[in-house]
């Protein structure tokens, strides 16, 4: 059944491709023949297609990397945010994707998320820190499912091709509109050279047509692009519910996201259609208009809340028709025919008691610091110090609470040097048989009681724990290894 959707999407991509390509070729021809009535038309087409091919090549080669860079996304593994990683993997299993998408976090307070991927084999999901801060597990799952649906339905593919086409058309139109006043003198000179130039009337008509098309083509292409984008959003919502079998998760996530009025710095016109809600939309703006990449969020929430009987595509279609009052096909009928009823699952019980907002916010901040190569040093008194990567390595820092001097481990402050295998002085002095410390390696130490305790790190350095120590992770001051401190098992309560 999902194949139907994908096939339909391919057909749509083809149509879009043909229409936009026709626009591109006509535009190239007209612009070219305005500049040179004889051979300019062909040359114009060649240049137009050349621009498109160049943009396509760049996109295919490194489009996703560029996009992620522009958005300031940082890749995270399972160790940094197990919940996010788990949720993505669950949805990968539910959607039956061939490969695990890469997971990224964007350091922004505005809650939002996007997915990119030219193919399901090579895809990525990115969420903002603000999103992680606000959503519980079921809501996060809803958002991730929406993004995975975009990958599964090949929306990312479609929108990328459409985006490149749109970009080429806009580029050529802009270039022409800024330079067409150069034409008359040039073509007049050309006409005096030979009789083949054509009549001046025709020339004027050509210029007029070219200007008209240069103005209209981008608008038309843009509307086409936006219309498809909006429809894909509904389809992604429907698929997301089918994957999670829990409409309320996505509904309340959308509600939470839309209630926050923070502008997303990382978004621009190009990346906007990829986010789960339109990052450029102002709160007061009229919701339902043709110039939006996304359908009005209130409508999306309402449709999801109408789904009380099931979580399949047919139920979504019914809910959609009920809201709009007219039967408009969001899901192709061939996709509906074979869909069987899917029951709604129950909420994840652990979600009923969310952690306090302050604590979640602090956790997310710590996460972002970890992503950005901050070093975490736990002082003997239990205070956790977070050091930015710019801190001079191999120096001492005084604990702001107890005043103890803490050495900053060299290994930790030079993650890049460690990665390329450069010998750092401290590592060299460590025993030869000890494995090189890496960021992911975590030793464990089980506390025996609540008093003073001493234990040895793998490199041989003795570490002491005070009775007041409440941290979870201790860093060896010599080699920078992380030691996980497991609290003592209580006797009674």
């Amino acid at each position, binding site marked *: 059944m999902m194949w139907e959707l994908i096939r339909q999407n391919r057909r749509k991509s083809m149509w879009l491709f043909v229409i936009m390509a026709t626009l591109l070729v006509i535009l190239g021809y007209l612009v070219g023949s305005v500049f040179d009535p004889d051979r300019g038309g062909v040359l114009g087409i060649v240049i137009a297609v050349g621009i498109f091919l160049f943009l396509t090549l760049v996109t295919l080669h490194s489009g996703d990397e560029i996009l992620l860079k522009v958005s300031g996304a940082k890749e995270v593994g399972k160790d940094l945010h197990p919940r996010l990683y*788990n949720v993505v993997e669950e949805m990968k299993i*539910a959607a039956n994707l061939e490969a695990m998408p890469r997971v990224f976090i964007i350091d922004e307070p505005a809650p939002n998320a996007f997915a990119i991927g030219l193919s399901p084999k090579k895809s990525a999901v990115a969420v903002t820190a603000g999103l992680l801060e606000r959503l519980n597990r079921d809501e996060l799952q809803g958002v991730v499912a929406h993004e995975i649906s975009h990958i599964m339905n090949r929306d990312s593919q479609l929108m990328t091709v459409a985006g490149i086409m749109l970009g080429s058309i806009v580029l050529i139109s802009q270039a022409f509109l800024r330079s067409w006043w150069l034409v008359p003198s040039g073509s007049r000179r050309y006409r005096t050279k030979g009789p083949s130039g054509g009549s001046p009337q025709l020339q004027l008509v050509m210029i007029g047509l070219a200007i008209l098309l240069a103005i209209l083509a981008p608008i038309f292409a843009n509307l086409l692009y936006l219309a498809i984008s909006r429809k894909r959003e509904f389809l992604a919502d429907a698929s997301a519910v089918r994957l999670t079998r829990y409409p309320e998760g996505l509904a309340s996530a959308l509600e939470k996201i839309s209630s926050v009025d923070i502008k997303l710095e990382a978004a621009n016109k190009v990346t906007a259609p990829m986010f789960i809600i339109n990052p450029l939309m102002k709160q007061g703006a009229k919701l339902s208009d043709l110039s939006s990449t996304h359908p009005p969020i209130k409508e999306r929430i309402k449709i999801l809340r109408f789904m009380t009987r099931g979580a399949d595509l047919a139920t979504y279609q019914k809910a959609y028709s009920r809201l709009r009052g007219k039967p408009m096909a969001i899901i192709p009928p061939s996709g509906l025919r074979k869909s069987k009823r899917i029951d709604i*699952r129950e909420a994840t*019980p*652990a979600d009923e008691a969310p952690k306090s907002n302050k604590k979640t916010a602090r956790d997310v901040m710590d996460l972002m610091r970890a992503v950005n190569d901050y070093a975490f040093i736990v002082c003997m008194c239990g205070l956790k110090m977070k050091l930015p990567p710019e801190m001079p390595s191999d120096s001492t820092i005084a604990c702001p609470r107890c005043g103890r001097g803490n050495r900053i481990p060299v290994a930790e402050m030079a993650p890049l040097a460690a990665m390329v295998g450069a010998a750092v002085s401290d590592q060299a002095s460590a025993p030869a048989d000890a494995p090189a410390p890496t960021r992911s390696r975590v030793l464990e130490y089980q506390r025996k009681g609540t008093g003073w305790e001493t234990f040895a790190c793998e490199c041989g350095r003795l570490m002491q724990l005070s009775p007041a120590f409440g941290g979870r992770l201790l860093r060896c001051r010599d080699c920078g290894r992380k030691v996980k401190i497991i609290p003592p098992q209580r006797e009674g*309560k």
Partner: protein
Amino acid sequence: MIGWIILAIPVALVIWGVGIYNALVRLRNGVKNAWSQIDVQLKRRHDLIPNLVETAKGYMKHERETFEEVTKARSRAMDAGTVGEKAQAESGLSGALGRFMLVVENYPELQANQNFLALQEELTSTENRIAYSRQGYNDQVYFFNNKIQMFPSNIIANTFNFQKEEFFEIEDVAQREAPKVSFTQ
């Protein structure tokens, strides 16, 4: 001419048979693959449980029965052989874990334990993965069973002894009812 036609009929039959046979093998491999997906997640859950119980034991002194129930359900699930037995044992384990998690709510100190929270997240995720991969597996089994029972592909299936596969059904009703009962206590 007639000689050619007589020759062509068996050739066409063989080609058709090979096509069906390959389709059957493909479907059976699909079922196997889908099963291994579930199996990975079931193993993952079995591995998680001892850790979970160990962590919780320090805090929950008076819940011996709940622990025993979970541990027993786990060993039953690990011993189960066929798909049907496994499905039954695993749904028993799911029920036991669900009750265990409800009991945990009475112990705020345990819920503040980072180690336990991490395990709980892993467990939730594993449960979800089992549910989602179960769906995929059952779809595969449905297609495969249809193919080997329907005419004419059932002729090939019978000749080469393709066996019907079992669905991985979890008794949803029992699983849903169980936690509610302990709520009313």
